[in-house]
């Protein structure tokens, strides 16, 4: 067990082995299309299979629930883990294909993971190419209360705050689902704001830019103002980028708020109330971590995640060094319970 806590892991990634794993969950038309068109895989270029970050050396096997059990759930004594597969289904440009493949992905998650270990919960992966499809997927799966959040990628088609997405956020609220925003691009635009990078290193490091722009959009377009009950969970975003970005945003807001009068209180306060972050990676050396926490100004925002099987740490160092022991109950458990209504419901703790 981690610090004596029945830990909740909010960011775990089953690897989809290939399209053949998903075809049993498709209707006949799409099942045949996959074969006829020769679509063997749509692995996401956000996490190329052999990139070092994609899987820790001792976690290369991550496509079966037994892998997760033996590598993480059992040794760490984890009570609950929220699984979010990052396969490329939600990125494809054909909206109907994205809808069909994402449905299959979510049903694969349900059958291959949720049904096989009662400690698991999952994200509803959303095909955001068409917001109506995303709403439809929420409505389809929300009755299964093991789905505890809806998930999108941080770099999508248009900035996340734009009003065409609001129906998705309303559906999240209707069903008590936080909106999880995970690192990664749907590749509608270059993954840096200055154009396409040459290297994986640039791309992975630039994720924070995407999170900044996405969070800025959610604030300025009024999503946090309009939907104060909506919780936003930033997954694998890192932590240290947040407050310097918000400091600039809030400083500038003081003089330009008349453009966005619905942002009628300091943006940092809104973020403290509604935005949560997983703590892997943290992106700061241990001696700097206390100062980062001081800037956050809240013990309620960080949630523990292993980011399994992504390579964020080695050995047993599952908690970023430098975080104080006093934070552990909230970090490892309480903040997740406060964020995820569906984890608090008694019927949901054990099937």
């Amino acid at each position: 067990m981690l610090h004596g806590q029945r830990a909740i892991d909010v960011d775990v990634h089953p690897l989809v082995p290939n399209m053949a794993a998903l075809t049993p969950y498709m209707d006949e038309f799409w099942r045949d299309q996959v074969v006829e068109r020769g679509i063997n895989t749509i692995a996401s270029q956000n996490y190329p299979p052999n990139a070092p970050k994609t899987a820790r050396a001792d976690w290369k096997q991550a496509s079966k629930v037994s892998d997760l059990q033996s590598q993480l759930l059992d040794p760490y004594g984890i009570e609950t883990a929220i699984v979010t597969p990052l396969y490329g289904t939600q990125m494809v440009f054909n909206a109907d294909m994205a809808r069909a493949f994402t449905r299959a992905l979510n049903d694969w998650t349900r059958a291959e993971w949720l049904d096989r270990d009662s400690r698991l919960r999952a994200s509803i992966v959303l095909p955001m190419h068409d917001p109506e499809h995303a709403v439809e997927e929420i409505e389809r799966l929300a009755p299964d209360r093991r789905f505890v959040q809806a998930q999108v990628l941080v770099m999508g088609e248009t900035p996340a705050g734009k009003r065409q997405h609001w129906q998705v956020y309303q559906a999240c609220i209707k069903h008590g689902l936080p909106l999880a925003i995970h690192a990664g691009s749907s590749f509608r635009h270059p993954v840096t704001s200055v154009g396409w990078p040459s290297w994986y290193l640039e791309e992975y490091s630039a994720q924070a830019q995407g999170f900044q722009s996405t969070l800025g959009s959610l604030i300025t377009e009024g999503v946090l103002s309009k939907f104060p009950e909506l919780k936003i969970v930033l997954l694998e975003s890192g932590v240290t980028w947040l407050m310097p970005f918000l400091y600039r945003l809030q400083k500038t807001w003081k003089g330009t708020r008349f453009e966005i009068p619905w942002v009628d209180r300091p943006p940092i306060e809104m973020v403290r109330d509604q935005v949560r972050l997983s703590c892997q990676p943290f992106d700061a050396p241990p001696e700097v971590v206390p100062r980062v926490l001081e800037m956050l100004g809240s013990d309620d925002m960080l949630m523990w995640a292993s980011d399994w099987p992504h390579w964020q740490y080695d050995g047993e160092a599952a908690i970023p060094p430098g975080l104080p022991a006093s934070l552990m109950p909230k970090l490892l458990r309480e903040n997740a319970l406060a964020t995820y209504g569906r984890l608090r419901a008694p019927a949901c703790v054990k099937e």
Partner: protein
Amino acid sequence: MARWVVARAEDIPPGEHKRVEAGGRPIALFNLGGEFFAMIDKCPHQGGSLCAGTISGHVTSPEPGVYHYARRGEMVRCPWHYWEFDIRTGQSWFDPAKVKVRSYPAHVETGAQLQQGPYKAETLPVTIEDNYVVIEA
């Protein structure tokens, strides 16, 4: 606190404003519909002259995309960083409790009233026929 005669009332018509002085202090003097308001002419942020700023209204919003524009002409925006202040109270929009411009009571008196004193008028001759803006600072 002294009474300072800082301007002839007719020199600042409704909707206008003027930078004046009281005891060496720069004062921003505004006329809102015949009512006068005075505040120190230094933004509490970094000292920008509010008299050189944009005059605008008070915009609020019940929800994104809806703009309620009211009290036109009653907000002043510092020219340096666009912080907004309520001309009637000196309070900032974004943190009215903590960030405000120091304001001073202002009113109009006739020259005849002023002859009874005491008052200070450093640069302004006071005559019986005219009306004057008096601030207490």
